């Protein structure tokens, strides 16, 4: 956390940029609300899920870069000479990512509420939203950690950002899947796990309690988190290579 706080670019960018992009898209795509079947009268509540996902990507890449830098400088070797287990080192690293993810979620939701968004699921829904947001950050963060541990390269971790961004754009970020007319795009968005993460958060804002959307979002985020943690744990064991 100390290192994160001392690198303003690592937390200012995730806090500011997603909201800026949200403002731009909301202004530019508001006409989409006129499409029959669009689930909300205003584009802002529809799009509020976006910064949660994009912010997670920023936090993930920044944290992954920090871990890769620790490998490059030998700092991870220093940590591995202590009694700490590889798992503990990984948990410590991801703990910082989770805290930042929670702060980001608070910020985005607060910004949304200030801009007039009303959370249909109420206070309980906000609590569920935070849990989901933290799970998403953990999932992405663990993949970022895996990339860092596997490659030991800050450049390799940074190169993941456009890859993750493609997943974000090829999703139901801008339109509900049932309103996407282009067949291939709708198919890709339906196969893209990020769509379900967005829809889970969105459902808490617009619909209230959508069991199916929430079940899918939680299942996928938990599944991704388990996969990411498993991969990064194996990568940590290989990276430490301690006897």
């Amino acid at each position: 956390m100390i290192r994160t706080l001392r690198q303003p670019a690592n937390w200012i960018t995730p806090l500011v940029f997603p909201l800026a992009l949200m403002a731009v898209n909301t202004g530019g795509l508001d006409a989409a609300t006129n499409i029959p079947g669009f689930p909300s009268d205003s584009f802002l509540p529809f799009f509020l899920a976006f910064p949660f996902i994009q912010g997670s990507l920023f936090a993930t890449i920044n944290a992954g870069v920090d871990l890769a830098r620790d490998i490059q400088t030998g700092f991870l070797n220093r940590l591995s000479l202590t009694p700490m287990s590889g798992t503990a080192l990984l948990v410590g690293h991801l703990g910082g990512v989770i805290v930042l993810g929670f702060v980001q979620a608070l910020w985005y939701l607060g910004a949304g509420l200030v801009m007039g968004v009303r959370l249909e699921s109420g206070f309980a829904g906000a609590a569920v939203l935070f849990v989901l947001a933290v799970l998403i950050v953990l999932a992405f963060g663990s993949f970022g950690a895996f990339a860092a541990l596997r490659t030991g390269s800050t450049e390799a971790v940074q190169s993941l950002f456009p890859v993750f961004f493609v997943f974000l754009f090829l999703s139901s970020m801008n339109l509900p899947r049932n309103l996407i007319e282009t067949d291939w795009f709708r198919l890709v968005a339906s196969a893209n796990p990020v769509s379900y993460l967005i829809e889970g958060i969105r459902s808490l804002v617009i619909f209230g309690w959508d069991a199916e959307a929430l079940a899918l979002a939680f299942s996928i985020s938990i599944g991704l988190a388990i996969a990411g943690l498993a991969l990064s744990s194996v990568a940590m064991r290989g990276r430490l290579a301690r006897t």
Partner: protein
Amino acid sequence: MVSAIEIRGLVREFKGGITAVAGIDLDVAPGEIYGFLGPNGAGKSTTVHMLTTLLPPTAGSAKVGGFDIVDEGAKVRATIGAALQEAALDPLLTGREHLKLQLALHGIPRDERPRRTDELLERVGLRLAADRKIGGYSGGMKRRLDLALALAHRPRILFLDEPTTGLDPQSRSALWDEVVRLKRDEGVTVFLTTQYLEEADLLADRVGIIDHGRIVAEGTTASLKAEIGRPTVEALPANGTETRSLEDVLRRFGELQPSTAGVAVRLDGRGDLAEVVRALDSAQIRVADLHLHAPTLDDVFLAKTGRSLEGSEEEPSAPE
């Protein structure tokens, strides 16, 4: 006596057929400073990485502090401190924060950490810079902090991998003083790798010289040099007509050696430099210049490998 470090047939191979350590055997006694001397790429750092459990050996065995490096890695790590080739510090943290983190990770009780932090900072001369970020530290300061971090949990055995490379003479001297103090006052065993002859000569109780992954010579610096030969005295007569007289005097102390500058004799134990000077004075022979050439560790390396250690070309490094 149980060795602090015991190595038997240690081997480390890397992909591509690179053999960084080709089978070494050595013992380091408790409280000893052991100098591991060799050119770049000789296998020094790879050996240290294996002994500090950061790298598993391909073959052979080793015990550090009585614990096997393969089967008892956690116990080895609890026993040792290590300052590796890279200072491995986070530029965003301060010196004090590094120490607090290190102490916490080693399980030092919370109420003991502030006192121990201050003690270590004082010892390495970083008390005034303790609350500055590492990014603002000089190379010497980083190395001193590195040493403090290695000592945080009071290890019995300390590994220093080329600790003074890149340091200015003052920082180097300060670090040498601390190493000597650790051995003298606390009985810490020090395994020191270096490519600097002066460092090995000054600090080490015993030296092992490694080349291409094998130990080519081992012993005290005095015994290693004595193996190569005795010192040579070379004198340049002030007056060319006294060359014959000079030879007669020097012949009393050993066998004359070829010399381009004047007359040289390899001392065979019948007298030292002071006695040579007295003899020249008694014979009233004036000399313009007088040199004592003692064998160096470089001479030892040259005799064992056919190459000079100083100025030796950098060998391809084994991947870590």
